[in-house]
């Protein structure tokens, strides 16, 4: 309506900060690293980014609802092991290689099965958190342990190589030269971007994440919304597991280990707040691109692998600093926030005595 004032500009800038960073990164890496912007390397970035990307969607939903899903990486490893176990022929475990159960199910049966398994895991998480009033952090952390433990037990700690081609299509196939995983990931971002910005479900997730009490008083059911969010997160983690196994064609029991921090980092870098109720799917996408590009660059620059984690950690910390400042700025800008302290009666002073 009016020309944006300084505050609005500042807000727009903090909201879309990631895109500025992204352009900057492309320019710097493109100029300094030979072959960085070559087709092969771009494809490489996108392929490695796609598994991360799928998981970031699920995690973003959880963060927007002011929750966290630490179990997602456990889901990745469990569904990969279960899929291989159901599809591969039986053989004795030896030399750290294991065979399947022997049922040799068709991939077209296994794929829906593992997706349903992921959704079920998410549902159980959500149910325990919202209906049994358990803490989301501990619930999903414990769940990660359970899932990883199951994956190890089923695979006997061994790898299971040789998943069928039909199963590998999502992770390793190409359509007209473009990796299927990249197409699928971009498709998922479009779908979930639409869901979160234009559909009732998205509206409810933001409301519940920003203020659960007000959401309830507005006629929403926070429990139902959050359970759905976790179910979606579990489903997407299973999809990521399918994609990853398809690319590797070998089930490794520790698949996905340590992914969670990268996933949360990408979402936060993309502007999804840890404090809930804020951020967009498209922003999270930018966060994924950024992280995938940096990881790729660290590889190409031959950074000592011993230092890679330190650099990654630093990037995550910087993203968190920006997230924290953003909320502080928003809190200060509200002229109304302090008024509530005026009106109550003396018992709010009860803490001081």
């Amino acid at each position, binding site marked *: 309506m009016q020309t944006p004032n300084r505050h609005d500009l500042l807000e727009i800038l903090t909201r879309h900060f990631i895109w500025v960073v992204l352009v900057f990164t492309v320019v710097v890496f493109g100029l300094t690293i030979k072959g960085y912007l070559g087709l092969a390397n771009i494809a490489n970035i996108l392929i490695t980014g796609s598994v991360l990307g799928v998981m970031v969607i699920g995690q973003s939903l959880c963060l927007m609802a002011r929750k966290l899903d630490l179990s997602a990486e456990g889901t990745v490893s469990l569904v990969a092991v279960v899929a291989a176990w159901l599809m591969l022929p039986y053989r004795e475990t030896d030399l750290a290689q294991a065979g399947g159960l022997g049922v040799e199910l068709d991939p077209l049966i296994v794929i829906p099965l593992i997706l349903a398994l992921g959704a079920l895991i998410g549902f159980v998480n959500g149910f325990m958190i919202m209906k049994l009033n358990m803490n989301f952090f501990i619930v999903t952390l414990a769940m990660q342990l359970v899932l990883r433990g199951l994956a190890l037990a089923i695979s006997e700690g061994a790898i299971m190589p040789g998943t069928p081609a039909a199963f590998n299509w999502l992770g390793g196939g190409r359509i007209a030269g473009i990796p299927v995983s990249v197409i699928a990931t971009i498709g998922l971002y479009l779908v979930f971007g639409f869901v979160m910005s234009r559909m*009732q479900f998205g509206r409810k997730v933001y409301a519940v994440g920003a*203020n659960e009490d007000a959401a309830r008083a507005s006629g929403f059911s926070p429990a139902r919304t959050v359970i759905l969010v976790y179910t979606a997160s579990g489903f997407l983690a299973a999809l990521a597991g399918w994609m990853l196994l398809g690319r590797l064609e070998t089930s490794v029991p520790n698949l996905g280990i340590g992914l969670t921090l990268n996933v949360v980092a990408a979402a936060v870098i993309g502007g999804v707040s840890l404090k809930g109720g804020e951020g967009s799917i498209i922003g999270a996408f930018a966060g994924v691109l950024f992280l995938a590009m940096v990881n790729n660059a660290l590889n190409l620059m031959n950074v000592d692998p011993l230092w890679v984690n330190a650099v990654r950690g630093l990037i995550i910390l910087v993203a968190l600093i920006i997230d924290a400042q953003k909320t502080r700025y928003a809190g200060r800008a509200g002229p109304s926030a302090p008024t509530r302290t005026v009106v109550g009666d003396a018992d709010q002073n009860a803490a*001081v005595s």
Partner: protein
Amino acid sequence: MAETRALARSDMTLLDMRGISKSYPGVQALQDADFSVRRGEIHGLVGKNGAGKSTLMGVLMGIRAADSGTIAIEGETLHHASPQIMIDAGISYVPQHINLLNTLTVAENILVGNLPKNRFGLVDWQAVNDDSQARLSRLGLKLDVRQPVEGLSVAERTMLAIAKALFNDARLIILDEPTAALSRVDIDLLFGFVRAQQEQGVAFIYISHHLEEVFEICDRVTVMRDGQIVGTRAISEINVADLIHMMVGGGVKEYGRESAAGHEVVFEVQDLSRRGAYEHVSFVLRRGEVIGISGLQGSGADELAQGLFGLERMGVGEVTIAGEVYRPGSPKSAFEAGVAYLPQDRHRYGLVQLRSVRENVTYSVLDRLVGRLGVLMRQDEQAITEEYIDKLGIVTPGPEQRTLLLSGGNQQKVVFAKLAATQPAVLILHEPSQGVDVQAKVDIFNIINDLSRQGVAIMIISSEVRELIGLCDRILVMYEGRITNEFSRAADDMLPEDILLAIEGGPGDADA
């Protein structure tokens, strides 16, 4: 002994606060307030909720910084105020809900942080108990020091808190609603103890809504209203009616509205009870009628509002809307039955502050805005938002503005818009004018007036008696969980003094 008495009763000023002002954005919480307490005096401080008592006490305790004004204790001006400075100056606060270490014994609570040790460096429990027992006897307080605090009655805890303050050399003790949860016997016990300390020269500030008790124990009383000190009187020179008159004020232009009440009963509550909250509540609400419900904290009015909207359990009894049984299990079912609720705590229950005006206004009607496959119809959404921005005069740069960035009054209007969009049959408003500026108040009253003319039955729970008188066709007063009095415009008996007296638990009329 005679000497101490003379000193205790002397007119020497202990505390002198001058010209204290404090403002928050949009609200002048304290305006040029002068307040003084003499040595060895029990000084009552009364006023409605929001009159400024808690802000004034906050300044005195050093937890709120005043914009201007001075505080002097025994003639010595304090240049900085912090909680520690005030405690060192001998000012202590005893809250309504006593903070003690409940699982520890009385003795441990008294000596906490300073427990006597034996030569092995271990706590010498014999000394702990003997020492604390001796200290309590000096104050004339008979308590078993070996008993855990959780076993004490509320009155005993209050006295223990006062005793602890005295052990820390307190000279002025602020008692905040000390009798709210006490029986008459316990009140006598507590008052006896307080008077005994007064004899020793300790001064008290006594904050209470219970005016009879103010008359019973105080030497002087100061009345606050709208952030200002109305006056200070010796208790012997004033009666209850005058005191209430000072509290409500007069001569201010009231908001007046024409009644739009019809005959058709829209909402009927029959014998509704919820344990620990309210008992045998019955009333009817007619089409277009506005009724007010007022009561002290703990009178059950707040709980009633939340119960009727399904935010809490409603309890036992029958409620009907247009003849049909109404039992909300959640706010969602309340909305569906045609009941909407404006919460008292706007920031917690009213607004999703991080989200835009558009989103907040349409939360309550999302189900109606859903097209195929759960996609929201953006144009309808936009239209509703703009309609209410226009109708209610919400001042915002646009529908996409985050509600966080709006003023209190405009935030409240956004909540109103959310409710009005559901086109409710019954509207429950909980302190609708709280935390908004004067202009926004008038706007909100106009909104209430418009809605009632459209036939909405409105129930306002508020402690702002004067506002209720201007807005309501009838006012019900709740005291200790029951509706004790009814005032109505028709009977021409809506007098602020009478209503306030009823709210404080004064003589109820028999027919209510």
